[in-house]
């Protein structure tokens, strides 16, 4: 059977014996990552064929041009969209974009490598330096703050894919060149990682960044993002780990390899750790793929026909000008005044979870910020920051999920200005929170019943009147006294009252108020009930 030199198989991960790995200070882990990220450009890197967004569904070899299959006489034509994407990523990572970078050929034979070489950037990469900052606050690492520095970024071609089938005795390799020549960015970090948490946090953060920049799906599962690991312990030779199809295999492979090497070192069997080698991950252990002696010489050669990528300074500054705000900055902004979101809520507005089909985080963030802004204008004070947060991220989103209404549609009847009006009613205590919940759900449910076609903006005053949701300002005192007495009779006994009045069990008052709210359907303010209960029961505290 043919042996792969670069295999990113989707091999299922077997159960890993989960002994908790102990990272011991006397065996210092030093680890770096090499991440390949597929760019979601419209076309491939050097040809006009489609760069498919749904690679797993495509007919093999359906997205191939004459160039992609390396027909004689074909030539590469650089796709500048890939360069733009690379520039965005470099700037987001604070990397130094080289004004001149060049393409080089990396030679090795393989069935899914139609040219016999891969075009990459070896001698003059696209960008150097840069970093991703990890922090305890945002990323949950142990250190207060840690920078993972980046060595370089390069643009290169992806290879095709080989599929192995056993037909009788023969092993047949099927080659699919749909992926051949898809643009990749290879990012290499310095070996700055010293524990697993940092690795996990980095991958998550990088993944979110490429999604945030709209340059890649960032999915490990589809192979759009692929991570290789290099690690060494106590300055022994570097070991590279490959074939790591998802985050758990990355983490488990590092743990396994750490344990393996610590075992060897503690037994004094370090001879195999003197020379660097490449190891693959089987799902439960790492196995040697090749050592230094069997590594082939890639015979890098400057590509003789592709021109240099020559970037004028104003091109780089121009791209800087169109860069979106970066996730960490957005997080910080959201967690500070005036928004003061919790970490969890800020993440909902910043990270693409790919898990909710009713909204995407960017549209939601924009809706939130606009509504917040409109609301601030109406109430003219910043003390009520919690109101937009709770009502948009929790109540409103909850309703949308429940009713299966996409945010984009709901926005049509509840644009930020209207939602701000709604919040103002709450803020002014025109309606109680309980009534508001009913009202919001009613509005959305009616909208859903119209198949999201009735786009008339809700008339809040009319609806409040119609459903008698008005909070009662001038409560009829006899009615209130009667209501409170009823509740006391129905829900209390002597011990209850004794403990409440003496202040031994103050929370009982809340219970009584809650009953009052329920009876009045939230139309009488809790403060009115509190006053009345205290008066009737003669509570002094």
């Amino acid at each position: 059977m043919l042996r792969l030199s670069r295999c990113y198989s989707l091999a299922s991960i077997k159960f890993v014996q989960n002994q908790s790995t102990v990272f011991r200070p006397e065996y210092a882990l030093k680890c770096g990552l090499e991440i390949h990220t597929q760019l979601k450009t419209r076309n491939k890197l050097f040809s006009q064929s489609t760069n498919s967004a749904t690679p797993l569904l495509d007919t093999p070899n359906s997205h191939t041009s004459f160039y992609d299959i390396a027909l004689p006489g074909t030539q590469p034509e650089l796709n500048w969209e890939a360069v733009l994407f690379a520039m965005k990523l470099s700037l987001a990572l604070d990397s130094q974009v080289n004004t001149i970078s060049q393409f080089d050929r990396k030679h090795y034979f393989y069935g899914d490598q139609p040219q016999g070489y891969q075009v990459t950037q070896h001698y003059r990469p696209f960008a150097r330096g840069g970093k991703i900052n990890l922090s305890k606050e945002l990323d949950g690492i142990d250190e207060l703050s840690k920078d993972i520095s980046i060595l370089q970024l390069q643009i290169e071609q992806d290879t095709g894919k080989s599929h192995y089938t056993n037909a009788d005795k023969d092993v047949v390799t099927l080659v699919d060149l749909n992926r051949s020549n898809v643009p990749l960015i290879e990012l290499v970090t310095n070996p700055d990682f010293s524990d697993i948490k940092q690795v996990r946090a980095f991958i998550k953060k990088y993944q979110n960044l490429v999604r945030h920049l709209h340059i890649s799906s960032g999915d490990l599962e589809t192979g759009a993002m692929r991570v290789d690991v290099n690690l060494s312990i106590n300055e022994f030779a570097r070991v590279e780990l490959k074939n790591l199809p998802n985050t758990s295999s990355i983490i488990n492979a590092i743990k396994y390899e750490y344990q393996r090497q610590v075992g060897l070192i503690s037994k004094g069997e370090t001879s195999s750790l003197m020379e660097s080698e490449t190891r693959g991950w089987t799902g439960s252990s790492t196995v040697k793929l090749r050592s230094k002696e069997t590594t082939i010489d890639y015979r890098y050669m400057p590509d003789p026909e592709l021109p240099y990528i020559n970037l004028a300074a104003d091109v780089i500054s121009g791209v800087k000008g169109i860069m979106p705000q970066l996730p960490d900055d957005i997080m910080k902004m959201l967690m500070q005044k005036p928004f003061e979101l919790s970490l969890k809520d800020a993440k909902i507005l910043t990270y693409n979870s790919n898990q909710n089909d009713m909204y995407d985080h960017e549209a939601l963030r924009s809706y939130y910020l606009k509504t917040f802004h409109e609301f601030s204008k109406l109430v003219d004070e910043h003390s009520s920051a919690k109101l937009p947060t709770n009502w948009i991220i929790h109540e409103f989103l909850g309703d949308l999920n429940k009713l299966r209404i996409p945010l984009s549609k709901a926005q049509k009847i509840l644009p930020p200005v209207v939602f701000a009006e709604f919040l103002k009613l709450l803020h002014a205590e025109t309606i109680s929170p309980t009534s508001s919940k009913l009202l919001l759900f009613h509005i959305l449910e009616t909208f859903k019943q119209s198949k999201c076609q009735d786009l008339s903006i809700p008339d809040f005053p009319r609806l409040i009147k119609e459903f008698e949701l008005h909070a009662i300002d001038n409560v009829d005192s006899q009615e209130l006294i009667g209501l409170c007495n009823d509740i006391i009779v129905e829900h209390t006994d002597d011990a209850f009252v004794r403990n409440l009045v003496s202040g031994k069990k103050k929370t009982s008052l809340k219970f009584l108020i809650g009953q009052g709210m329920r009876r009045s359907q939230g139309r009488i303010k809790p403060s009115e009930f509190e006053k009345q209960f205290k008066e009737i029961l003669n509570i002094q505290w």
Partner: protein
Amino acid sequence: MPLKRSLKQSLQRLSNLESKYNIFISVSSSPYKSVNKDKTSGILTDYVASIKDNIVTKDFPTTCASHILENFTSPYDATVVKLLKQAGVHILGKTNLDEFGMGSGGIHSIKGPVINPLYPHEDKMVMGGSSSGAAASVACDLVDFALGTDTGGSVRLPACYGCILGFKPSYGRLSRFGVIAYSQSLDTVGILSKKIDVLRNVFEVLDKYDKKDPTSLSDELRGLITKNKKVRKSLKIGIVKEFNLEGLPDEFQESYFTFLKKLISLGHEIYPVSIPSVKNSLPIYYTLSPAEAASNLSRYDGIRYGYRDPDLDIKDGVLFAPTRSKFGMEVKNRIILGNYNLCSGAFKNNFIKAERLRVDLVNEFDEIFRFPNVLTGAKGNPYGLDMLLVPTSSKLPGTIKKFQEEESKSPTNSYINDIFTVPMSLAGLPTLTIPLREKTPIGLQIVGQYGDDSTVLDFVKSIS
């Protein structure tokens, strides 16, 4: 003016000539059919041409004279072929060559060597290569013109040996899209013909920017060249000391001096000039071109097209070795040499150094020419020259037997033939070889500054 009336005759003569000189690899059974009469119009209507078999065509197989591409037919036409068809040209067939363009004798072909038709009654003489069939097809009057490719002299040497005109335009002027790469920092499509007017018309049809070729000269730079162009009646012409004319046979020297006298009588001025880096040309060329070749030929693994070993894809752990063992000896030599130069150990010492020396050579050419170089940005030397004269070869063609003997002693013996042609390839200069005698193949190259193709063509027209 075109040979149309003789096309039938050509076809009739072809089989006779073919068995004698081995000019073609494939021939059209109906060359008229390849032209759509309605669509075509233009100055090349009804001209007959041959295409070197390393330029891809839909209507013929394209083999590069290699076992590796046996029976390969391209699904698309090279840009130059497309342009010719659009201009109404009939393509007679695909011509024999040294495998993948590697060779200067025209003998390294799966189809066997091309025999020089200038010597019908003697021992089989070499045609020169690698565009050997291209030159022979013109020399035999089978076609009005031929397209060849020139990497280090592959159009000029066989043109010289066939006593015809052979033009290697400035690098990047003619599209290479569909030209099977040997060493694409040097590969140039060239035109061979007996008549300067035909050659010029063909050049003008093909001289276009092609977006599919990343090395194609941009319209912007083409415009700049036209702007820089000055028509001069009296030219300053240089003779390069380093080419050491004194070492050439008497017969050659006499031809040159006769020619120089003619030029002086026409009012041109002749100057001696020194280009010291010329002496580095062969080492530079034989470092860079095999490296590029080794890289370009990596794609021939038999999987997607071409020959594939019927039994094995892997031998002794080496992928595709059984298929790739079918390359010819000269190609194998160059692949090995090229890979050696690209090995991480040798790369800095050889490849990088050769690239640096190539830049030095270009700079020296820039210093002696009056015309600006739009690629390097050299302004042009106000006291500089308009043209250079360089011999095309230092000797007359020998027998195929002798050529093979010398090459078997040392492969570098045949490499030395390239000394007069390689410097202009390295600098991408427009160069046209002209025959100085009618039946004796003594050729002289007219060399212009990069981009200044028209001065070269105008000059040759003025003296013909």
